[in-house]
């Protein structure tokens, strides 16, 4: 198998991905009539990344072959798809829905715990192995990652100021999450044993491992390190981008230059 054939053929038929990809545009255009205010670009990007994470070779390789691919999928589902989707959907949410969501679940501390828990929980060796072995557990993992990711990003990206954290709080929220991820990343990178033992000796049903090990020169050790480093460096960069967005809000406050004088003019 060559890299090209891997990229071209290793796509999974993933009913969840297909269902979402069909349902989301329908819902978007159905609502469009009512001028919902949803933003199409982030929504489309969210769907694209979602499909890549589940159905593309990333999703296949994450299924017990490569720890790094698993980590990539994991990060996309927690850190990329939910914020993009929220950015797309949030403006369309009514104030009632917002308030209800805020009351039920999305208190910042809970949301933070869910977001960081999503990182740590599924790398508990037992759960990680179970997810790689049983398709059902894997599906639960994917859905729960998306849900926890959405919960995590809500206090940052909620549609109305009242349900958002104030800027400094938002910075602390994201920075501490970054620290928690960094710790896990360091642990995964430098710990001598594979957290998910499945990836140390993959069962090669696809016949892809010769390509990975010999063609790409990726040893099991490299694979484990890349997984840890993905959690460590790029994951923190995502939080960093979030922090920049939140800081940007400080400078977009309505009480900024000039605005005050015009607003107060009689």
């Amino acid at each position, binding site marked *: 198998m060559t890299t090209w054939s891997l990229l071209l053929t290793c796509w999974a038929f993933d009913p969840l991905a297909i269902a979402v990809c069909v349902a989301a545009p329908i819902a978007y255009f159905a609502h469009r009539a009512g001028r919902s205010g949803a933003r199409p670009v982030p929504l489309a990007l969210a769907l694209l990344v979602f499909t890549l994470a589940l159905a593309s070779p990333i999703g296949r390789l994450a299924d017990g072959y490569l720890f790094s691919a698993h980590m990539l999928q994991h990060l996309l589902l927690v850190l990329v798809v939910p914020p993009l989707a929220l950015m797309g959907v949030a403006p369309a949410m009514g104030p009632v829905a917002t308030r209800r969501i805020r009351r039920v679940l999305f208190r910042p501390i809970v949301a933070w715990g869910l977001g960081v828990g999503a990182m740590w929980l599924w790398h508990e060796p037992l759960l990680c192995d179970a997810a790689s072995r049983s398709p059902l557990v894997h599906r639960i993992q994917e859905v729960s990652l998306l849900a926890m990711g959405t919960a995590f990003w809500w206090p940052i990206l909620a549609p109305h100021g009242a349900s958002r954290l104030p*800027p*400094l709080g938002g*910075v602390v929220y994201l*920075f501490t999450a*970054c620290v928690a991820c*960094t*710790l896990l990343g360091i*642990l995964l*990178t*430098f*710990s*001598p044993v594979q957290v998910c033992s499945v990836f140390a000796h993959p069962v090669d049903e696809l016949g892809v491992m010769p390509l990975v090990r010999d063609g790409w020169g990726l040893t099991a050790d*490299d694979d484990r*390190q*890349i997984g840890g*480093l993905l959690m*460590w*460096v790029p994951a*923190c*960069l995502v*939080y*960093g981008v979030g*922090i*920049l967005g939140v*800081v*940007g809000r*400080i*400078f*977009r*406050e309505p*009480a*900024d*230059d*000039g605005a*005050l*004088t015009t*607003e*107060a*003019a*009689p």
Partner: protein
Amino acid sequence: MSLATSPLDHAADEHAAEEHGPFAWVATVDHKRIGILYLFTSLFFFAIGGIEALVIRLQLARPNNTLVSPDTFNQLFTMHGTTMIFLVVMPTLVGFGNYVVPLMIGARDMAFPRLNAMSYWLLPFGGFLLHFSVMAGGAPAGGWFSYTPLTETPFSSTPGTDYWVLALLVLGIGSVATAINFIATILTLRAPGMTMGRLPLFVWMTFVTSILVVLALPVLNASIVMLLVDRQLDAHFFLSTGGGNAVLWQHFFWTFGHPEVYILALPAFGMISEVIPVFSRKPIFGHAFVAASTVAIAILSFGVWAHHMFAVGLGRTADVFFVVASMLIAVPTGVKIFNWIATMWGGSIRFTTSMLFATAFLIEFVIGGLSGITLAAAPIDWQVTDTYYIVAHFHYVAFGGTAFGVLAGLYYWFPKMSGRLLSERLGRWNFWLMVLGFNLTFFVQHFLGILGMPRRVFTYPDLPWWGTLNLVSTLGAGLMGLASLLLVANVLYSMRRGKLAGDNPWDAWTLEWATTSPPPHDNFSEVPPVRGRRPLWDLAHATGSTPPAQAASKPPRVLDKGAVAVWCFIASEAGFFLILIIAYVFFNLAGSEPVGPSSSNVLDVKKTAAFTACLFASSGTLWLSERSLHRDRTGPAAVWLVLTIALGAVFMVGQGSEYIGLYQRGVGVATNLFATTFFTLTGFHGLHVTAGLFVLAIALGLALSRDFRSRRFALLRAVGLYWHFVDVVWLVVFSIVYLKAGR
């Protein structure tokens, strides 16, 4: 101090007695005086560090020179680096911040003036400790980053390193206290209308820097504490003979060390961002981008320390990630450079000495930044690491960047501090000599590094070009020395004879220029209304219809300065414990268990669990005490407080009995790595509990003396937060040390 007769003293009259007494400068808690004390202290240490640098350069002026012995040379570069970083650059930046930040945000003083004075006095104390080593048997000689195992007892037997550790601990505590003070000041004492989005960029960058200090310095403190435990108690954290790991020191040190680079650079960026707009007669281009890119730099700075360690052999995979992350820093830094250039573009530039230094900063810092990008590429780093290329690079950042920025700031703010302008004529001589000397000294070192000349070696063989280039470098250093003398002369001369400045000599826009030069004791008789980022410009161009500032906006949420300070302190302490916990996990849980005593065979989990329950219960009783006080029932509040102290004391007794039991079984700090990490971690936690008990006792004393009204409620709440934090730390320690053992 000899300053007593300078115009600096002509401030407010009503405080005359307080301001001119024999101990006026020693006992002061005025942020302006403390700022000036900082500046003069760092000038003093700059002279020491500068002389050390000149001796280094003289030794290197020609090949095979024997002016100083190898060991003296090692001490010289170690002291030069440590002095310049911790006793010159950091205090200078803090000094300017101290003087200017409260003025710029329209405050009367820092949030905690007495804490401010304490932070300052820790500086001369730390400097004294560091230099006392010279008399105690030899200065530290392991370089400013004190790599282990070189700095461990078998290889550095003089007490130099111990004094280095103690000095840095003292200075670190002072820096964290100052940083907390800055954060509380900036968050809680801004004048009405001064939103975070309108903060002058120097204030903003001091704010971001302070956050970096609060998070990064504890990492240094924790690691040097471990080094001290190694050296004084024969432990083996970083000594491979006992199973320790020398590379761990490098990880810890650079986790602090890289953010430290930005702690040294960001406030200078802030000064440039004030100077360039004023002398270009234009508002800064892209204010939000300059401010946000600072935050980006601060975040990235925590994720790239491994680029100092490419030569260690972290593995190809790790190298690639850190190469990419390091290069990313060039993006926000580049954004800043372009913003400054765009600010100058098309402006009517006045090249005062301040602006000249700011312009030179742009050029020199870009050179330093570009060599930094080359070093971020691991293969290039392997070639030139530990050569003079590195020396050239970080001097272009630290001197061409930070020092030139500071000089721009000095020429800019000196009139505000003294009431008199620095001489422009001397200033120009100072500038050109400095720029010429600096570039002669350090530009040629790039070539020396590429030619392979290693840094930190006391002399070199007579290879082609090496002698010539080194001589050029030494001549340049002489010019820099001359320029520094001119600067001192200029300061001393202008303080007495300089041209009177008036309130606003540069026609600048920020609040510090609204008051007199020097400002009165309370800074402002009335703070001008703030309606934008340039309040004085708004004031000068006010149209008749502008309403008073406070009428339009809703009253902002006011944060409690005590709460802000305690939360910052907790963040800082969390960093400290995090490093100790990481060390424990690294040595006990990450690999195989250490030989000898370990958590599974010497610890009594059940007994400790009982004492742990006491500690957690004390959090509950303290909460009950707070609640009673909140309902104004001081009696029950005091009772709950007594119970809290009793429960805390029981916990300490439990820990004490556990220690005694371990010692009786022959388990001491130096026994093995489990014992070392166990005693260090739980010992520091116990120290914090003890400190908490003392503070609780003080609170109880206040309660009993009936001085416990609503004003004191904030005190108890602050103490309470700290106490809960100590309990949370124990929760983590207990589950990692004891419960993991039970499995």
